[in-house]
């Protein structure tokens, strides 16, 4: 069976070669054109297709066995000349979209590149409106096409950034498609860790295709894109979670696992909130690099602006700078930032303050203790109000307003948590006091509703009794007058 299959394959390859013409040495197209010393035949000599025995007629059609020009370039024999526009990619796809042909040449390349290209952002119509933006030869070139593994190929990992930048760094060209798209990606990339390693000749670090894909590139706002916010951590982790792949760089590979457990990771990956920060929001995208100690608060501050501002004007700023502590990271961690709870504050063993403020007589210790007590009292007030509101609600009373007040307490709590970063107990107390006041208001509302419930029932009882009494009196009166 295996032998039969091998024979069939051999016959198939022979047929292909016969269709496309004779092997290169007997390829009349190439022989004739090389004597003309034209650029195409010179390039074609080093083309992977030439090396695989594919004739010029493989793409251009015609008869590569004919000596005569007219016979060789006869349209009746399928000669198409120089393919133009979308025809170019269609000619490539004749073989590259056909698994049998590709496997016949011993290629393991996927055969869906053409379909992927057509459905990609590059497959959209160009500004002229008649052809697609990108054809195969835009990136792979024509006549001198090299294997992707060949360092001379424009799509070899070390060359990809430059290849992409031919269009993507051309502001004049790019603005005709997307005026808001930056054109500094290549410059940014060169400043990144990935870019620097790439420039030093290391093909392993990420280049454009590693993150955006190759033939199947989708716009960033497309949920199918590898760089759509929700997909970014997965894309980065393809390399950064691969211990073997990352071994030589000597950096941890647990960032993705940690990030997935973090408040940011849960928001992005579990709640699918595209506004939550992904890897690129802290590290940059094209210019990806780990933020330095001095930059951390700036990076976090792009979203947590108030916290960063309060921290900068707090006494901690100077202390952290002196001890060279990374600002936010010291208390909150980096990839595994969990939701900040009250436990983080104070002098209990789970609190972060106690790791520095160990002396019970120090003002730092006292402040931490006081702030924890205040925020706990805010929680207690809120919980007490919630219990009363639930009781009132279960009795069928309208407690919408009290519920709104509960929301206000949550807002105050958020404000208090921000105010923590000033590390000023008096300012913190001012904020918490507002919440405590709202909490007692909400409790009073709920108590009022519970009281109203009792009042309604008592009121009903009294009314029903009085009406019944009146009705009974009336009944007796009617009986009396009807007896007469």
């Amino acid at each position, binding site marked *: 069976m295996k032998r039969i299959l091998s024979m069939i394959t051999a016959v198939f390859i022979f047929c292909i070669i016969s269709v496309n013409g004779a092997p290169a040495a007997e390829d009349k197209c190439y022989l004739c054109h090389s004597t003309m010393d034209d650029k195409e035949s010179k390039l074609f000599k080093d083309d992977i297709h030439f090396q695989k025995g594919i004739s010029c007629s493989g793409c251009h059609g015609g008869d590569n066995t004919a000596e005569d020009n007219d016979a060789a370039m006869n349209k009746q024999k399928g000669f198409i000349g120089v393919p133009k526009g979308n025809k170019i990619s269609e000619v490539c796809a004749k073989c590259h979209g056909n698994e049998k042909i590709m496997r016949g040449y011993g290629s393991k390349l996927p055969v869906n590149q053409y379909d992927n290209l057509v459905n990609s952002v590059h497959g959209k119509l160009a500004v002229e409106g008649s052809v697609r933006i990108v054809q195969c030869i835009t990136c792979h070139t024509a006549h001198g096409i090299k294997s992707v593994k060949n360092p001379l190929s424009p799509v070899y990992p070390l060359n990809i950034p430059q290849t992409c930048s031919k269009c993507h760094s051309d502001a004049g060209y790019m603005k005709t498609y997307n005026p808001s798209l930056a054109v500094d990606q290549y410059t940014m990339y060169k400043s990144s860790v990935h870019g620097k390693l790439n420039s030093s000749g290391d093909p392993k670090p990420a280049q454009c295709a590693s993150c955006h894909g190759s033939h199947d590139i989708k716009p960033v706002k497309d949920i199918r894109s590898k760089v759509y916010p929700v997909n970014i951590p997965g894309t980065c982790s393809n390399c950064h979670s691969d211990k073997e792949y990352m071994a030589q760089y000597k950096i941890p590979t647990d960032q993705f696992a940690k990030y997935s457990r973090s408040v940011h990771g849960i928001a992005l990956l579990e709640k699918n909130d595209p506004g939550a920060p992904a890897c690129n929001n802290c590290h940059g995208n094209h210019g990806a690099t780990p933020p330095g100690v001095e930059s951390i608060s700036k990076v976090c501050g792009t979203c947590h602006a108030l916290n960063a501002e309060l921290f900068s004007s707090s006494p901690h700023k100077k202390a952290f700078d002196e001890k060279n502590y990374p600002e936010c990271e010291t208390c909150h961690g980096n990839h595994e930032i969990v939701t900040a709870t009250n436990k983080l504050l104070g002098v209990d063993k789970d609190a972060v303050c106690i790791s520095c403020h160990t002396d019970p007589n120090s003002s730092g210790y006292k402040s931490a203790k006081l702030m924890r007590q205040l925020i706990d009292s805010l929680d207690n007030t809120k919980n007490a109000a919630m219990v009363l509101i639930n009781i009132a609600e279960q009795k*069928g009373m*309208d407690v*919408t*307003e009290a519920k709104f007040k509960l929301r206000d307490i949550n807002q105050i709590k958020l404000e208090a948590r921000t105010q923590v970063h000033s590390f000023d107990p008096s300012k913190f107390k001012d904020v918490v006091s507002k919440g405590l006041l709202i909490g007692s208001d909400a409790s009073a509302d709920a108590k009022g509703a519970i009281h109203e419930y009792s009042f*309604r*029932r008592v*009121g*009903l009882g009294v*009314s*029903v009794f009085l*009406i*019944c009494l*009146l*009705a009974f009196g*009336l*009944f007796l*009166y*009617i009986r009396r*007058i*009807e007896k007469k």
Partner: protein
Amino acid sequence: MKKHLSKTYKWLDDRLDLTSLSHFIEKKTVPIHRSSIWYYFGGVSLFFFIIQVCTGILLLFYYKGSADLAFESIQFIMSKVEFGWLIRSIHAWAANLFILSVFIHMFSVYFEKSYRRPRELTWISGVLLFFLTLFFGFSGYLLPWNKLAFFATKVGTDIAGNVPIIGEALKGFLRGGDDVTGATLSRFFGFHVALFPGIFTTILVIHLIMVQRQGMSEPIESDKETTVKNKTMPFFPNFMLRDMLLWLVVLNVLAILAVFFPAELGEKADAFASAPAGIKPEWYFLFMFQTLKYIPAKLFVFDGEILGILLFGLAGLLWLLVPFWDTKSSKGIRNRKMNYLGLAAVAFIIILTILGWVS
């Protein structure tokens, strides 16, 4: 004191001839027979109407009839206005009980054949009052401007739009535009608090005058000269006090319902939200709604819904004109067929309402 009162009475009597009115009241009697109980439902219906007018006026002090404020104003009435929740709940419950009481009153009159000569016009005015009661319910239902009311009005006005020839114009008139919007709310508010009360009160006064002029109808058997005349009781104070006793009982029921099952408000209407699943009209329209659902979309060459509307229209017209085609009863002859027809109508309404409720 007594002297002052008799002086005031004399002063009024000189101007208004109160003596003849008091003679009329003194002489007025109410027949006593096995079906006398049904007489009270007219009075109960009147009591509910009075409650509706009083609570409606109180609600008007705070209600705002615009799409932006209607829902919020009801919220305000329910949560902030002293006893606002009670007034609204009583208004909502009394509306339902009013319709139920009118239904009972109307069918009791039908089964007693009280529409027969000379009370044809009293019957017509009563049926018109019944139709107006339904319109009151339909227009009032939208006023809280909540999601359920919004979509129910949409369905209701869509059905009105299927009336042949005038349908589209009628729908446009009811909605005040192509769709149910704030303009519809303003219109329904106007109908509910001005137009319908005006017409209703006029017809009600005519109805009551006719009842007073013609007296209470007696069972058909008493028309025959051979039968012994039924016993009677004085209208004042006996019947009136009995009426008031029942009103007190009804008031008690109403208070209990309003406290234990206060009217809900739901979510604010949103034209862009999807309609709630299984949306249904109020219970008193349910039998018609359910019937329209059962009629196939195409019946021979006719559109099912249009046919259904035409049939209900025809049934309403026949109901209005009962005294004119039930000639036997007017001659004092027992007409059992009318009883069977009435029973079929009651059974149809109850069964279809239950089916609509559970579906």
